[in-house]
């Protein structure tokens, strides 16, 4: 065990050093992948064997490291994403100086992620937490140094640090109260517990991209190199979910119901808001980043349901809800990494990722395109694949909130259930569009018509992740029965260790049966259809030929929804018509869906901050006399205060 972990860490560090050497980038990245694999195997071993390794949690401020079941699960998730991503990177990252630096920094990124997960005390947790925030910023700036990228990185660092203050407050207060690793240290309903809960929700929620703290995520995730995007969207947000689970479920002890309700509301908002804004993105990677907001929202719904059910004494269902949230974390990691790596492949093959300018890639790239198709179906929550299994569990958990949690919390649970149902349908709309615009139809640029399969390393990592989506969708029960036991209370319910999902006292999801029946029926009906086909004909367009100008666009496909949600989304459109002599010469159209949280929440705050800064700047005249006057004024004020007895 210990050899596996130490060997893995050494392999990652060694791989990082090796990547920096000229000509050794690819072997270096593969060594890192091997190290991540070793760590993941160790994590999975701890998860399934039970028990823990290394030190237990401590509220002392001395660096300690260890692995328990929850950490082990997240380490396995990390490996599931990092191995394919780094193998992908070994032929994706260019052999330039910038590429070599990126390769080394990815090792630092991995180590910081592992550090957060394995830290057993507040100080090392916070150290690795900060590192985990800063390294991706460095990687993004190494790859590109455009004005826009610098601005994005500034936004990313600024928001995550402002929000990250919450993490600091939560962790240090927990350490102060001696509550790290000790759920009984905080009394229910105490003030300090409330402060810790709020600080943790803000701190970890910002990192997880929960609305309305998400503003940085859709900006920063897309501009990183594809495999770093995969690590950020697959693992870094998962580590934030780890923080939420650790503090809110584990260390906070029995919490008042408003904590669960708050997480549930934020989760529902993120799920619906994330996927709605994803629908109106023009860039594939940006769309995927918004969908990360959605899926962390789903995870938060599971955590919120867990907290509410626990508060109302339904311990067994609380454990199921926690298992649902954790299972969704790993499922999201698998398909989101797959989709980001796929996006990187398409960008490499065609040169751009604008949704309206791709098309027909399934025909040109059967392996990568096919894997991307599996990922898109999984993220759209289709039965037989992994996304559906964990969303089904989350729905079940939310459905049981009304059954146990009284009128107010029960109503909230029902609203969250409706929100999740709507989110799943919106995800179908969104990813049908992605499948159609990227993989199907005619190629919309010559580059797409000439695109070719990438190198085998890139292709194989995509196929591996697609396989993971299928396996996790077929046997979720084997993992889930283990995940429910991670809940830190005695009554975690008995879930039988079967491939399908079988919860006591409600319906069940027989994944294998569904797979056999749907695939078997598909095969039978395919055979029954026979091979009799007439000669192919062009598709029907009222007798016209289908011109490229007649092809549907992303904005066109989501237009009905935009019109339905007009009152909420406030889309903007401008039509300018130029006429000469009564004849229309030119019509130009521009439409966009502004991000309301940006314009209504962040804009006033940043404007206010800048205004305050310009006021404060007047104090800084730069003249020595002014500063001496300030000093004298301060001393006089202090003396006066002492005189009237306010201080001293």
């Amino acid at each position, binding site marked *: 065990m210990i050899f596996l972990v130490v060997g893995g860490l050494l392999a990652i560090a060694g791989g990082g050093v090796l990547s920096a050497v000229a000509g050794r980038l690819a072997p270096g990245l593969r060594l890192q992948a091997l190290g991540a694999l070793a760590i993941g195997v160790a994590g999975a071993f701890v998860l399934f064997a039970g028990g823990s390794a290394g030190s237990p949690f401590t509220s002392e401020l001395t660096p300690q490291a260890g692995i328990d079941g929850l950490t082990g699960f997240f380490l396995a998730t990390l490996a599931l994403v990092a191995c394919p991503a780094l193998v992908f990177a070994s032929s994706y990252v260019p052999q330039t100086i910038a590429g070599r630096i990126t390769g080394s920094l990815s090792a630092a990124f991995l180590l910081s992620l592992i550090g957060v997960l394995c830290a057993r005390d507040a100080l090392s947790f916070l150290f690795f937490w900060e590192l985990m925030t800063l390294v991706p910023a460095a990687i993004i700036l190494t790859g590109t140094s455009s004005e826009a990228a610098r601005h994005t990185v500034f936004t990313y660092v600024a928001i995550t640090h402002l929000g990250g203050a919450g993490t600091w407050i939560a962790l240090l207060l927990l350490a102060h109260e001696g509550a790290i690793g000790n759920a009984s240290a905080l009394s229910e309903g105490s003030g300090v517990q409330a402060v810790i809960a709020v600080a943790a929700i803000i701190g970890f929620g910002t990192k997880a991209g929960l609305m309305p703290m998400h503003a940085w995520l859709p900006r920063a995730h897309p501009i990183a190199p594809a495999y770093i995007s995969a690590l950020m969207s697959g693992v870094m947000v998962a580590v934030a979910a780890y923080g939420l689970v650790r503090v809110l479920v584990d260390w906070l002890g029995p919490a008042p119901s408003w904590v669960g309700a708050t997480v549930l509301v934020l989760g529902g908002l993120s799920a619906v808001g994330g996927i709605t804004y994803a629908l109106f993105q023009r860039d594939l990677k940006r769309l995927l980043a918004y969908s990360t907001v959605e899926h962390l929202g789903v995870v938060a719904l599971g955590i919120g349901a867990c907290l509410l059910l626990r508060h109302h004494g339904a311990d067994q269902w609380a454990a199921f809800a926690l298992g649902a949230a954790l299972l969704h974390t790993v499922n999201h990691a698998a398909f989101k990494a797959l989709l980001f790596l796929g996006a990187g492949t398409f960008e490499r093959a065609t040169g751009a990722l604008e949704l309206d300018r791709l098309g027909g890639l399934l025909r040109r790239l059967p392996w990568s395109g096919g894997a991307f198709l599996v990922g898109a*179906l999984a993220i759209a929550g*289709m*039965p037989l694949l992994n996304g559906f299994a964990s969303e*089904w569990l989350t729905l079940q958990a939310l*459905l049981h909130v*009304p*059954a146990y949690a*009284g*009128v107010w919390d029960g*109503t909230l649970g*029902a609203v969250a259930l*409706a*929100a*999740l*149902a*709507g989110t*799943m*349908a919106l995800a*179908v*709309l969104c990813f*049908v*569009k992605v499948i*159609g615009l990227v*993989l*199907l139809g*005619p190629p919309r640029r010559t580059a797409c018509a000439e695109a070719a399969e990438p190198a085998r390393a890139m292709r194989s990592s995509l196929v591996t992740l697609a396989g993971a989506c299928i396996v996790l969708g077929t046997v979720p029960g084997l993992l889930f029965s283990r995940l429910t036991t991670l809940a830190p209370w005695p009554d975690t319910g008995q879930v039988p260790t079967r491939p399908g999902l079988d919860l006591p*006292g*409600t*319906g*069940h*999801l*027989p994944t294998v*049966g*569904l797979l056999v*029946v*749907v695939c078997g*029926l*598909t095969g039978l*009906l*395919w055979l*029954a*259809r026979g091979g009799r*086909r*007439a000669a*192919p*004909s062009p*598709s*029907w*367009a*009222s007798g016209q030929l*289908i011109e490229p100008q*007649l*092809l*549907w666009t992303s904005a066109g*496909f*989501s*237009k*009905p*929804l935009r*019109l339905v949600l007009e009152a909420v989304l406030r889309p903007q459109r401008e039509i300018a018509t130029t006429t000469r002599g009564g004849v229309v010469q030119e019509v130009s159209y521009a439409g966009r869906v502004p991000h309301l949280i940006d314009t209504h929440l962040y804009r006033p705050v940043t404007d206010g901050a800048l205004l305050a800064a310009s006021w404060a700047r007047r104090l800084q005249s730069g003249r020595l006399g002014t500063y001496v006057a300030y000093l004298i004024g301060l001393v006089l004020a202090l003396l006066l205060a002492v005189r009237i007895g306010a201080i001293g």
Partner: protein
Amino acid sequence: MTAQSGVSGVVQIVGGVALSPLLVGLTQQAKARLQGRRGAGPLQPYRELRRLWGKSGVDVEGTTLVYRLAPVLVAAAVGAAILLVPAAAAAPGLGVGHDALVLAGLLALARLAVCAAAWDTSNGFALQGASRDLTLSVFVEAALMLSLTVAALVAGTTDLPGVVAGTAGGHPWTTPALGLAAVAFALVVIAETGRQPVDNPDTHLELTMIHDGPVLEFAGRDQAFLQWALAARHWLVLVLAAGVFLPHPSNVWWQLALLPVSLSLLCLALAVTESLIAKMRILLVPRLIGVGAAVALLGIVTWLVDSL
């Protein structure tokens, strides 16, 4: 397997596979009579299926496997859903379980397959229908989930035979929550079966199509699969409506005996609705179904207050 669940399983499979086109036929016939026409008889859907089955398929130029697979996958997903929805409170295990939420997933799979095929053909009318269908499905899905939640809360499980048993007897009369959920579910039925005021099943104008749009480009046996799947969707939602939201006895034999009556009444109700109400403007439909979802939510609140 008891005799009850055996017979119920036979009714479920034979009814879903073979008798579902009859439901469409009955509705069309009733509608024709209400409009003063003679109608083609309730067996007309079977004649259409036979005609389509005898014709060869026509592929659209430049399509991929997605297009070829779509009709088969739709029929397979709906077929799996038929195995899932029980005809009465007893049902044999057919490998796919009986979970209400899985049913929603299978219907979504069928919808996605058709809409992806629409992108594959690049047909503007197909895509228009697909985008409308998916937009409406956002609201339909929420209403469906909430109404099923009410039923699941009343019965204490999402296992459909359990739900049918749990809502049997006097429940639809004595539990106001179930009545409210029935209102929402009625809207879901209309939307899922593609009937007025949500969609017009008889339209021949491409611009007004919702469900018929994405299937425009299929011919022969492909079209036969899709038409059958539409009919089978009638079976699924109407059986669910009859078994959960309409009053039904608790005895399984009586449930099976009364099923044809309930289904005929529901078909008649669909025909009456279609004859009385004109098709709504497409952008008003989400509002209607949203109201339905709100009513179902009210049902949940009622249940919560009731069970205090």
